[in-house]
């Protein structure tokens, strides 16, 4: 069993996906363990709730497994996985906004959640600059936030981001550029020429 596991971890994504499509759970588990941390980190940047981002990451993998027959191998597994994640995150964001819109006036504190929504990065960071960066990312519209996170934090190429977000490379470049501009504008008052 141990030998089998070692063999699995040495396989490429495309090979693991092919095994998973045949119903191999060990291959699926290997894929999950390989990508879960990066996916959770990405979704934490996208969402406003860190616990929910982990649940959402599980939903992404569940959906991947349950609809495994839909994936067609073109060497684009990661963009495919992140497309599912981005769509789920956007859907979650829309639901949250609807809830806020519907219950805004009926909520005791007016934010529709009952509790103030903490910033995920603010929870992780204690320094003020980190808090500001987290808030600035949250303030970005989802169409800018997603490419910024993939480009700047995950280090993806424009081509892969375009495949994940199902749009043209030029559109991704433009959104990254505008996202950076907005971040710079928001962070400028806290920038003193270096990271403190």
């Amino acid at each position, binding site marked *: 069993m141990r030998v089998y596991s070692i063999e699995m971890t040495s396989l490429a994504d495309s090979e693991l996906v092919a095994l998973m499509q045949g119903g191999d759970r060990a291959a699926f588990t290997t894929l999950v363990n390989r990508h879960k*941390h990066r996916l959770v980190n990405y979704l934490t940047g996208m969402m406003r709730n860190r616990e929910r981002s982990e649940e959402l990451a599980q939903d992404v993998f569940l959906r991947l497994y349950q609809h495994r027959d839909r994936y067609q191998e073109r060497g684009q597994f990661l963009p495919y996985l992140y497309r599912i994640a981005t769509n789920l995150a956007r859907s979650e964001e829309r639901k949250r906004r609807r809830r806020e819109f519907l219950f805004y006036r009926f909520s005791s504190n007016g934010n529709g959640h009952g509790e103030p929504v903490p910033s995920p990065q603010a929870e992780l960071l204690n320094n003020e600059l980190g808090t500001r960066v987290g808030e600035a990312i949250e303030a970005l519209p989802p169409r800018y936030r997603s490419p910024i996170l993939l480009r700047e*934090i995950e280090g993806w190429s424009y081509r892969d981001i375009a495949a994940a977000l199902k749009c043209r490379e030029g559109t991704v470049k433009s959104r990254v550029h505008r996202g950076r501009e907005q971040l710079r504008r928001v962070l400028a008052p806290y920038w003193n020429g270096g990271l403190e």
Partner: protein
Amino acid sequence: MTAMNDDDLGELLKKLPRREASTEFTDRLMERLDEPLPGPYRPTHAPRAWVFAGACVLLLGAWLGRVAFEERNERRETAERVEMMRDEYRALQVELEELRSLASEVRPVLDLGGTEQVDFVFDLRRLAKERGLARAQPTSYSPP
């Protein structure tokens, strides 16, 4: 103090701490994978928000319907009142015309009595014509 450029921003973003999946992430996922798949979605009850929104729409529709009904009734009553006033005006016009024609037919005569066969009347217009009398003048009248 230098302005923040793309490299500065990139460096700042990369220094954000990375969030990792919890240690039980994979185990919980596998447990969920073993749970039976939910069947086709059958709503057992509408979410309260939709019920509330539906009730609001119904109330709004009822209120608008009532307002429209009342407005239509009011317009109809006003039109009926206007029509009645027009009818009355037309009737008054007819009556006035009749009075005018009657007045033009009356001759200035003095009834002197008579018999069963003959009525004796004195035509005042003829008298005025014979005597050269003008029409009666008011006392305040002064000729130019």
